[in-house]
């Protein structure tokens, strides 16, 4: 009694016999499927998490700072059409003095109403509680900062508030949707050791800063159909006489913009790499299965001879493929889900989301599975169609030998230019040009996707090199609470350990060309600046021209301007004029978009005496601690950004995210590459078993036979590398272009070592496959292949 039909038993046994190959193909599919599942899954989860976080904690839509505005103004703001909620508060930057911590740290102080949670930008209390009414010394701090200093409820630290040192006690540790990504003054990266958000009682802050009955920061929640631009315009008009800086929306809110950029990079990565991976995998299984089915030619002929119908034979092989694809899809979905969770948690940790919303994406699984299956079936059917066209009598015979041609004049043969194995290899490649081409294409794609995954690491290093070592070469940036006269530079220069000091003035502006507009900072710097240098698009330092504006080349692209064009500028500080300035240079920078001007030119433009917002300094490393101590006693200073720390933070934070993602993709690319090469080697062994067996009969040793087989693999592998490099560069370019954004970007650098490494990985896969094939050649008694024809 047979429980399974004989054909299904054959199917099952064939799968067992070909398990290594079936697994290799399944892994290629898994590689393709898991990238898609991972990328889409993590992205959707993070996006949903952010939406939920923003909603549950009432993250505001519009933000504005003022010098001092009466609270009565809030009622007028609430009456602006489209405004759903308004919250006025006090927001001030102040230096912190933390026990056993030498470096100066900065706190962004935010006032809390006496009745607890604010209406907008509500806190997520991780530990402890909100300050009690009337307790001016109780504060809630951000979790990152608390963790960096091992602060728990009950810990103490001091702050210099408006020139007076004040002792504070931590009562709560919190997260806020407004400060998911918190960057200290003058800094480029978050530094949780040295920058904190500190929430404390409004009464206490108001009395310190003399802001009773007033506010210095306002945030607005909009109604669903409100026009952000319209509300901002009206808000600006209301705040203008109270020293308001131009209001801005979420797009320009630091935390939101950085988070958006992080998600955007992930989004672009997931829109670029996984589809490529999936398509490559689909192409590879298509080619591979087509070859495997072609090998079954004699059995297909036999089944037909026995009276099986074409459809039954085809269905038999399609079932074979469905099983392999299913295994691949299951492995891929499991690995993709696991990796997706890992990536979601990694990003969740990085952004300190209070919770994560994991989104299941059945549509992605189905789409990835369907594409893999379709590619596999099309490949198999292509081979089946060719075989089924043959009468069974012909199909049961081995295929007629292809017609080979002499490639070189006969004299070469006579002169023994090439050994016979080499001739066999050359003829075998030229005799099956399509097969050779597909094999080369497969391995090129493998090399290509490896390069596309590997180059990110090199690009990150290029970004670091240009930003931290060519352009911004200062050791530290001292930022002031408010703009200071130029002589403040001399004050700083006299501090202990200062070797050089350069002024830096920053003015917020709106820059416009036609209807394209961006809110940026224009920095004024000395033309001969040696610390804050300007690097042009050819990576040479340039001197700022005496007039006009230098722009980030990225910004120039956005605005569609070139050197020589004029752009319109709304100054958002001081007299708030609108001026027109010529673009005089384009600058290579990778963080943010900005304008740069000659220091004196900016002062003239602002119609002010030369002033600074910060001072870039170079430090004597031995005097660093004395410098820190001196800074801590300066009430005009809001913070110090340390270049060395910023770079370290960049490396451990953002770079880790990007490189971890890159490494995941590298791993999956390696799996795909190995699957392809291994299958190529195994299939050529099967295809040529008879020929190789004949050689054994003629007296060739196993080693010689192996060499003939592997010579072809080696030649194809090597031929595949140059096109692989071109494909890899193309993919890297695409990815680079898609991942570049206003907040961060880099120039495309594909190091020579990247090409070498990608090729080395494919060649290693080839070597490993060669070892496996050698074992099979040694195990097979090739002589019997000649006797039987099954």
């Amino acid at each position, binding site marked *: 009694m*047979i429980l399974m*039909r*004989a*054909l299904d*038993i*054959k199917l099952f*046994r*064939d799968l067992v*016999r070909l398990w290594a190959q079936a697994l290799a193909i399944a892994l290629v599919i898994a590689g393709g499927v898991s990238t898609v599942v991972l990328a889409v899954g993590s992205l959707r989860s993070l996006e949903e998490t952010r939406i939920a976080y923003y909603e549950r904690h009432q993250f505001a839509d519009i933000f504005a700072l003022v010098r001092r505005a009466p609270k009565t103004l809030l009622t007028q703001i609430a009456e602006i059409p489209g405004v759903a909620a308004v919250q006025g508060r006090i927001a001030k930057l102040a230096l912190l003095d933390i026990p056993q911590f030498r470096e100066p740290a900065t706190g962004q102080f935010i006032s809390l109403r006496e009745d607890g949670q604010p209406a907008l930008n509500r806190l997520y209390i991780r530990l402890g509680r909100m300050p009690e009414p009337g307790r001016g010394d109780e504060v809630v701090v951000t979790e990152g900062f608390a963790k960096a200093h091992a602060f728990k409820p009950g810990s103490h630290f001091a702050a210099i508030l408006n020139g007076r040192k004040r002792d504070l006690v931590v009562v709560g540790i919190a997260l806020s949707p407004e400060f998911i990504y918190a960057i200290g003054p003058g800094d480029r990266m978050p530094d949780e050791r040295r920058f904190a958000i500190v929430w404390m009682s409004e009464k206490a802050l108001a009395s310190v800063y003399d802001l009773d009955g007033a506010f210095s920061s306002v945030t607005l929640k909009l109604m669903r159909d409100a026009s952000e631009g319209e509300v901002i315009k009206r808000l600006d008009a209301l705040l203008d006489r109270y020293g308001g800086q131009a209001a801005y929306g979420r797009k320009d809110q630091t935390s939101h913009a950085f988070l958006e950029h992080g998600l955007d990079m992930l989004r672009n990565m997931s829109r670029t790499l996984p589809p490529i991976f999936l398509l490559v995998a689909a192409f590879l299984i298509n080619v591979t299965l087509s070859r495997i089915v072609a090998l079954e030619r*004699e*059995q297909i002929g*036999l*089944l*037909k*001879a*026995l*009276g*099986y*119908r*074409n459809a*039954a034979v085809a269905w038999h092989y399609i079932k074979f493929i469905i099983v392999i694809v299913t295994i691949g899809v299951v492995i891929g979905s499991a690995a993709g889900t696991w990796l997706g969770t890992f990536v979601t948690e990694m990003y969740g940790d990085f952004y300190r989301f209070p919770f994560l919303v994991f989104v299941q994406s059945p549509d992605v699984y189905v789409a990835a599975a369907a594409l893999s299956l379709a590619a596999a079936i099309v490949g198999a059917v292509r081979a089946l169609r060719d075989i089924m066209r043959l*009468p*069974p*009598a*012909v199909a*049961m015979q081995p295929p*007629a030998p292809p*017609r080979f041609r002499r490639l070189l004049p006969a004299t070469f043969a006579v002169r023994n230019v090439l050994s016979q194995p080499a001739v066999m290899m050359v003829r075998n490649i030229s005799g099956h040009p399509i097969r050779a081409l597909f094999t080369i294409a497969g391995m090129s794609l493998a090399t290509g996707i490896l390069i596309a995954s590997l180059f990110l690491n090199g690009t990150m290093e290029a970004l670091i090199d240009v930003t931290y070592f060519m352009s911004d070469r200062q050791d530290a940036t001292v930022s002031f609470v408010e703009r200071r006269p130029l002589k403040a530079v001399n004050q700083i220069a006299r501090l202990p350990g200062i070797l050089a000091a350069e002024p830096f003035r920053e003015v917020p502006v709106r820059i416009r060309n036609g209807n394209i507009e961006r809110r940026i900072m224009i920095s004024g710097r000395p033309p001969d600046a040696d610390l804050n240098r300007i690097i042009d698009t050819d990576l040479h330092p340039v001197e700022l021209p005496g007039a006009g504006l230098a722009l980030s080349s990225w910004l120039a692209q956005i605005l569609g301007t070139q050197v020589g064009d004029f752009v319109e500028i709304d100054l958002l500080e001081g007299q708030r004029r609108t001026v027109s300035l010529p673009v005089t240079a384009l600058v290579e920078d990778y963080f943010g978009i900005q304008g740069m001007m000659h220091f004196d030119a900016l002062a003239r433009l602002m119609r002010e005496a030369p002033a600074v917002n910060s001072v870039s300094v170079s430090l004597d490393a031995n005097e660093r601690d004395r410098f820190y101590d001196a800074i801590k006693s300066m009430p005009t200073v809001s913070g110090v950004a340390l270049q060395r720390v910023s770079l370290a933070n960049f490396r451990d934070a953002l770079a880790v995210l990007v490189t971890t993602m890159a490494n995941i993709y590298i791993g999956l690319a390696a799996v795909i590459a190995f699957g392809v090469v291994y299958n190529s080697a195994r299939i050529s062994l099967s295809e040529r078993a008879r020929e190789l067996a004949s050689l054994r009969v003629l007296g060739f040793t196993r080693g010689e036979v192996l060499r003939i087989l592997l010579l072809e693999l080696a030649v194809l592998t090597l031929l595949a590398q140059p096109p692989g490099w071109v494909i890899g560069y193309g993919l890297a370019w695409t990815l680079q272009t898609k991942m570049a954004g206003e907040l961060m970007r880099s120039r495309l650098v594909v190091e020579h070592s990247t090409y070498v490494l990608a090729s080395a990985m494919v060649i290693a896969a080839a070597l490993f496959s060669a070892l496996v094939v050698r074992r099979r050649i040694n195990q097979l008694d090739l002589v019997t292949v000649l*006797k*039987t*024809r*099954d």
Partner: protein
Amino acid sequence: MADLVFSARALTKTYTSGETQVLALRALDLEIFAGEVVVLLGPSGSGKSTLLNIMGGLDHATSGQLFFKGQELTNLDDRGLTAYRRQHVGFVFQFYNLIPSLTAYENVALVTEISDHPMRPDEALALVGLKPRMHHFPAQLSGGEQQRVAIARAIAKRPEVLLCDEPTGALDSKTGIRVIEALLGINAQLGTTVLIITHNASIQDVADRVLFFADGQISRIHRNEARRAAAELVW
């Protein structure tokens, strides 16, 4: 006279191999009757296998007509030929052509599953004396045993004709004789028409008729007055 099973009229087959044209069958005429054992003898390339393949519906003729029990095979399409093979013909090939991943039993079941009135696989294997080894894989069987599995597979569907292309070609004489014995046994017990292609002239003694092939034509037909038993064969 027994019923006519096959009749061929001017059957012609031309192969194109590269730039050369090979005339495998030249306007061949032939009649085969029910219950006959026919041996086809002749040198390589004389057209024996080509004829057998066309008779078995494995290949198409270039011109001429071939009838099976009055039905014209030469105008059947692929689907028609498949049905014909499925219902009427059993094949035995020189190289057995067993599915290596299936046991003897399963190889036979492969055919019984798609036939209308098959015998049980173990029954078919018993007929060729292989019931004790029916759960062995081809690789665990000797050449002769493998060929007998192929015969069991061919007869399990109770075909009208059994077409054997060099069934002993890969076997030594002793196992070859057992295979011939099995074929004659089927002919005797089931009345199946058996056509055997061979290079081995001594096998002709078991046949009712012997067809001698040369250059794609039947050059001579010999009728044995008395068939010898397989056991009496010597080669």
